[in-house]
């Protein structure tokens, strides 16, 4: 096939023939920036045995370099994509927050920071909860606010101890609902074995918030001494999920009532500290754990590939998904791999300890459907591959923002 460049004999040039169409300024800007970078792209070491890369591989290498560039927020305003947990969120965090606050404790961008306080090693985390609707099948915002923060501590290897609770309430919010949320937080804290020991309350004018937002922060003690982090993943490691994925996200989408789909699904919100304690007892060599929230399991796999500079290969047949969730996702044209969970663990364990890890998880009620979904590889660092149930292969990349339903 002939490649016509620059421009080309058709399409692109035809636009110039007609009377002076306008130009989009931002495109020129993007291209200028691109060209500046392009000039600095030196020859790139490639492949094995110094083989001459084919043209497609050259392009792939160029893209890989572009992806490793310093992230930059291009938008002038925050869009919903910045909160979806995908590429836009990563860019925002790295370009704005990490850039402003940079320090060695923050830099790993793990779910909780690991701090030395006196002689003790402590984990600290915080999370805000803005879910809508506030009450949904399987839970509510209060339970979520406790479990989410407990899980962020637990996956960092800490024993969760104390939580704070901050409330932003909208004028007019029913006191009965707030009472219900508080009771649910009390019960969730008791179930997870943590105490809520400090808090804050603000009320904003009607229309300035959506009923009730909650922030919780948590501290836990790191008394196992094991260093955990996605950057520790090594080729040969196994990747395990603790149960069916996507339940929470699909439940929320359906609970909003915009889709007119009914399915018997409920949120999987649960505290993972018990499950994790059992896993760490059985397999002290666990390399990393994450709870799959926003962005789903796919986002975590990408975080592993990026942080450890390894490849990740997963097998679609081995990923547990409930039929109801799969059905709803299929109808909407979205991939359960990107849908949020609130009580699912993704663990990276040494390959030869995968069976022990799986056995330990499966003895806990939250881990009965745990499954090894894939392995860490040395090939194609930075990328996540999926062996599809159909028998083909494809990439599983980060999404830009929320998964959008397709037109047809």
């Amino acid at each position: 096939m002939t490649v016509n460049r620059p421009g080309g004999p058709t399409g692109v040039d035809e636009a110039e023939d007609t009377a002076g169409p306008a130009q989009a300024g931002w495109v020129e800007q993007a291209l200028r920036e691109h060209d500046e970078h392009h000039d600095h792209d030196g020859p790139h070491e490639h492949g094995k045995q110094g083989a001459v890369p084919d043209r497609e591989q050259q392009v792939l290498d160029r893209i890989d370099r572009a992806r490793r560039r310093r992230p930059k927020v291009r938008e002038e305003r925050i869009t919903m994509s910045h909160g979806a947990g995908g590429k836009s969120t990563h860019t925002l965090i790295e370009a704005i927050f990490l850039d402003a606050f940079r320090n060695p404790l923050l830099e790993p961008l793990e779910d909780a920071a690991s701090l030395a306080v006196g002689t003790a090693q402590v984990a600290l985390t915080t999370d805000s909860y803005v879910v809508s609707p506030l009450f949904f099948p399987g839970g509510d915002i209060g339970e979520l606010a406790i479990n989410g923060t407990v899980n962020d501590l637990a996956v960092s290897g800490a024993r969760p101890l104390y939580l704070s609770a901050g409330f932003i309430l909208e004028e007019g919010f029913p006191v009965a609902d707030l009472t219900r949320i508080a009771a649910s937080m009390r019960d969730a804290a008791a179930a997870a074995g943590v105490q809520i020991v400090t808090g804050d309350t603000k009320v904003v004018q009607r229309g300035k918030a959506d009923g009730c937002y909650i922030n919780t922060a948590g501290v836990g003690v790191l008394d196992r001494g094991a260093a955990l982090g996605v950057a520790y993943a090594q080729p040969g490691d196994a990747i395990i999920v603790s149960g069916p994925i996507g339940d929470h996200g699909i439940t929320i989408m359906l609970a909003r009532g915009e889709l007119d789909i009914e399915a018997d699904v409920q949120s999987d919100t649960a505290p993972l500290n018990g499950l994790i304690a059992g896993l760490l007892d059985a397999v002290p060599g666990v390399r990393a754990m994450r709870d799959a929230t926003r962005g789903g399991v796919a986002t975590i796999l990408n975080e592993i590939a990026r942080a450890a500079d390894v490849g990740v290969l997963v097998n679609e047949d081995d990923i547990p998904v409930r039929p109801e969730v799969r059905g709803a996702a299929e109808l909407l044209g979205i991939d359960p791999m990107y849908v949020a969970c609130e009580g699912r663990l993704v663990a990276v364990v040494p390959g030869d300890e995968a069976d022990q890890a799986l056995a330990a998880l499966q003895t806990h009620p939250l881990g009965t459907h745990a499954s090894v979904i894939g392995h860490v590889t040395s090939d194609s660092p930075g990328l996540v591959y999926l062996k599809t149930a159909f028998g083909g292969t494809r990439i599983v990349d980060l999404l830009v923002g929320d998964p959008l339903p397709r037109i047809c």
Partner: protein
Amino acid sequence: MKFVDEFRDADTAHALAAKIAALCEPGRQYKLMEVCGGHTHTIYKHGLEDYLPESVTLVHGPGCPVCVIPMGRVDDAMALASEPDVIMTSFGDMMRVPGSNGSFFDAKAAGTDIRMVYSPLDSLKIARNNPDKRVVFMAIGFETTAPSTAMTIMRAAQENLRNFSVFCNHVTIIPAIKAILDSPDLRLDGFIGPGHVSTVIGCRPYEFIARDYGKPVVTAGFEPLDILQSIYMLLAQLSEGRSEVENQYARVVPWDGNPTALKVIGETMQLRPYFEWRGLGFISHSALSVREKYAQFDAELLFHVPGVRVADPKACQCGEVLKGVLKPWECKVFGTACTPETPIGTCMVSPEGACAAYYNYGRMNRHRVKEAVTIQVGRP
């Protein structure tokens, strides 16, 4: 899952792949175009190309609804959305499509009232609930989505809803296929016909492709085995020297289409003399506008639409990609200046766009990955 898993069975796929390989004549190259973006999505999502011999290349065609919307039209929609008291409604795919001043998402962030809907009927609901607002539905898509827009217009007329209108950007597939067939820089051996469009228009409209251009057409379904089977059917035609229109998707597509759907389109919409397609330029009789009888629901008459043409960025080669002249990765800005995060061309926006599909799912060296997958997946 019933009625899904049967169409994704790996054993059947292996058997079909062997039959496909057996049909390929040594030394001959086959280029087949899947017209519909839904097919492109399926091909990449399931890694279907792993089953094809190297001599069979799939070329991704123009049937992705948002990919063919020119930038000027996005700007028009944005102008409509910023009129006083307007609520603009649109499908999710449209939200990230860049105009010359950003996308719907950007406009939404800046305070414009733009809402994502799953069906045009949702827009109608919004109109009923907001009688003091003017609700506009940004209608896009081929004959597949046109009937639901048509039904919505008729419903609005029945209810005599005065605050609802449609910004109509519906396009028709046949003139686009013809433009591709007439383009001098193209060499295709056959077409995987668009399944969803065909549920409405049927298979008859493709007969000229087989008759006048000598290219076989097989209308295909959207599961990976559907596509694999349609590739087999195309190769069988080629090896037997036939060029016919065949229907692989007969379980859904009637040969003569859906007369009711065609009737409602005809009732509410008419062909435009011409319409601009992204990358393909102006194509005559290739799009639909709201009929005069329903003028009160035509946003183009109710509002001032600037109608300023915006040139496709020079560096963007969406046109060549849409025609299958270039593979996505052969575009100069692919994956570096143009990514799903910062798309320059529309093909990079929708999951059905050839560039986005390749970037999100197919950006890899197939040979190396195949080796890695075979070794790793074999593990206990």
